[in-house]
């Protein structure tokens, strides 16, 4: 009798115990149904990854920086996938091939230097290979000395503010008057834009998956993020750091315009204020805006005249809002969304038309802004009527922090006042 058979005759006590408690095998049909279910679920999960209509798909880069990330993650995922398949296949093979059929305990061995060295060296080589490319990509993404346009991005509960400093870059002739807007980050296409990302209250995270990775917005810190879009279009994003009650409704979009369209957009944003015509509903709306909204929301150029003295209407959100800021509404109707890029100002039809526009026609369509035909009035009306009902901003309706609100409170406006405000805001283009 060989040595092996002497040794393998022993049975481990655990094996005995397992055999004693082993249930009867499930019927073949039940096992087949289970395997079928798992297979269908796996297939569904795999097929979900093939969706074309995925606006926040990091696998569909639309800019230089996102492409750098993609160029790194694809081979890394491939390597990880191959390693995963090998590991799962090996484990699966061992589980099936050497499963307990009542056989004797196999011979136990310890130590196999050649195998152990190989299993150390191969992962080390793989990690070194991945590490070299990762580090070079990280450095390339952190570059700040070759950008052509600067935009300050400030997050707060639960919207993003974008301000464009006066600068020689961004467009021919540069930006001469600072611009402030919200919700949609408008950038010139094929231009390396540098975002200075920060926050007014808690930590947020800025992420437009098709244009670059994410960058945390941290109060008191100035973090940079490169961004470049290959062609005109609209790219959706989402705050990716849990930041409070309406974190899920803190969305953003980057709008890329060609150079000429971007220049037009800048010109629109810095145009002088146009007051509504006397006697119109919008003119009444202006008064309502001043009395009800201007404490927090700024409309540049808005002023009041008393006894021949003209005084600019200046908002004081620092006195009413925890974050100390509220969206500037000077050019509200040049955007397609409001309230943290969450609700549409465009009807579904117009929105689809804009999202599906070719790069050549996109700019002109976007610059039209919210036309009367495309205006989704119901959303704005519901918002003004009771904002917290659409976007929860505080746990209790009357909850404040030192007398300040976290977001827009319920203003208890009359339907007439809402009509007036909508008429006024529709002219903010």
């Amino acid at each position, binding site marked *: 009798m060989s040595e092996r058979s002497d040794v393998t005759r022993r049975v481990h006590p655990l094996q005995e115990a397992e055999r004693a408690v082993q249930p009867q095998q499930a019927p073949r049909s039940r096992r087949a149904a289970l395997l079928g279910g798992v297979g269908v679920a796996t297939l569904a999960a795999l097929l979900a990854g093939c969706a074309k209509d995925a606006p926040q798909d990091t696998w569909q880069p639309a800019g230089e920086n996102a492409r750098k990330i993609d160029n790194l993650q694809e081979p890394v995922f491939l390597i990880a996938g191959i390693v995963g398949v090998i590991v799962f296949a090996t484990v699966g093979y061992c589980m099936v091939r050497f499963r307990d059929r009542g056989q004797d305990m196999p011979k136990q061995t310890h130590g196999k230097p050649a195998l152990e060295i190989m299993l150390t060296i191969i992962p080390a080589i793989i990690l070194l290979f991945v590490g070299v490319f990762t580090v070079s990509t990280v450095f390339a993404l952190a570059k700040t000395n070759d950008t052509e346009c600067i935009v300050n991005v400030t997050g707060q509960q639960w919207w993003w503010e974008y301000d464009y400093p006066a600068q020689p870059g961004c467009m021919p002739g540069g930006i001469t008057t600072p611009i402030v807007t919200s919700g949609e980050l408008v950038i010139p296409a094929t231009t390396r834009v540098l975002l*200075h990302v920060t926050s007014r209250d808690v930590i947020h995270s800025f992420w437009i998956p098709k244009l670059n990775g994410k960058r945390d917005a941290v109060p*008191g810190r*100035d973090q940079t993020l490169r961004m470049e879009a290959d062609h005109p279009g609209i790219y959706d994003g989402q705050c990716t750091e849990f930041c409070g009650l309406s974190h899920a409704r803190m969305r953003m979009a980057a709008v890329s315009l060609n150079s000429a369209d971007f220049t037009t957009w800048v010109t629109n944003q810095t145009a002088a204020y146009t007051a509504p015509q006397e006697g119109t509903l919008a003119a009444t709306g202006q008064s309502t805006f001043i009395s009800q909204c201007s404490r927090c929301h*700024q409309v540049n150029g808005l002023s009041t005249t008393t006894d021949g003295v003209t005084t600019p209407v200046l908002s004081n959100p*620092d006195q009413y809002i925890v974050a100390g*800021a509220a969206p500037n509404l000077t050019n509200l109707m040049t955007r397609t969304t409001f309230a943290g890029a969450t609700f549409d100002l465009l009807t579904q039809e117009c929105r689809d038309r804009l999202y599906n526009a070719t790069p050549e026609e996109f700019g002109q369509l976007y610059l039209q802004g919210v036309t009367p035909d495309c205006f989704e009035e119901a959303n704005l009306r519901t918002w003004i009527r009771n904002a917290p009902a659409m976007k929860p901003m505080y746990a209790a309706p009357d909850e404040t922090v030192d007398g300040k609100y976290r977001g827009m409170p319920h203003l208890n406006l009359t339907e007439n006042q809402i009509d007036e405000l909508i008429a006024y805001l529709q002219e903010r283009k």
Partner: protein
Amino acid sequence: MLTTGSKLLLGGTVASTLAALIWGISNGGASAYVGVIGLLSVALAFGLLFGVNYFVRDCNVPATAPDALTASAAAMPPARRSAWPLVAAFGVGLIALGAVTKPIVFKAGILVVLAASIEWMVQAWSERASSDPAYNDSLRKRLLHPLEFPLLGAIGAAILVYSFSRIMLFLSKEGGPIAFILFGVLILGFATIFALQPTIKRGVVVGICAIAALGIVGAGAAMAISGQREIDRHPIVNDDDGAQCLRTEDQIAGNPEYEEIEHHSSQKVSAKSNPMARVVLEDGQLRAYIVGADQPIDQLTVARSNPGNILFQNHDEGEFRLTAFAGTDVTKVNDTEVKVDRLTCTTLIRKDGEAMLTVNFPKSSAAAAPDAPYTLTVPGLEGQQITVVVP
């Protein structure tokens, strides 16, 4: 049949009830109620214990029980001596002392009582777990050692760290690093010796470690009593009227209060700091730089209501400060308009020194007077300013 224990508790119940009756009859007023309620409570407690004792037949060991002599509760060895009641009493004393002195003493008392209660309870329980004292002891250790060792280790480490910190605070700024290096060398040296001499006696290692620990704790206690060295405080510019932010090097000369503030500030900023802009004074020129712009800028855009940091670097001879002007507050005092400029500033920064200035502009630039925009300036330096725009 009533057991001995039951008889005792029954007697206590009857006696307490009688005492309550006698007290109630012999006393009047509020004290009668208090006494009667107290004694009846005692009677109730005795009654309850009697009931429990009677029904569970505690200590009632039949003579015929085969393991009565070894396994029954009555056959258990008597409770061993325990220091925990003493510790608990000490904790109660601390609570009382803390109630009239400092909250920290009170909290320490609570912790001591809690720890003593747990230890006492587990010890008492384990001593009754079986008739084998060795097994009982191992049971107690198995339960409490996972709690005791980490806690005692943490407390020991905390005492050592605290003692060491007292030593470092006592030593001079120059002596501190030397002592630190010395401690490090000693630890490394002894550790090397222990590692190279595996046959060294355990008692020697324990003795050296104990002497070192006692030395640190003793030295720490002595130096804590002696008090810490004089530590320079960072100045805080109390500048309600903004005047300090406009004072130049010449204007503070000879004023001890101002000089104390200005000349003891840190002149270095951590490399990990993250300013939104860098303002540099060089060759009499004030320039601002932001990341991403390759040329200096003369107009800095700052988001409203968002405190941000600006790094000020002085490369010129002399001492200069950076002052931010964020508008003017107008208030009425006795029907008279009082205007106060919102100024924030660094302290005076020496040549090649730097400091961080935290600025906050709560209002947009539109709120600034046309002839007084928001600015960053260096008092005493004419014609140089960075305009701040708050959209």
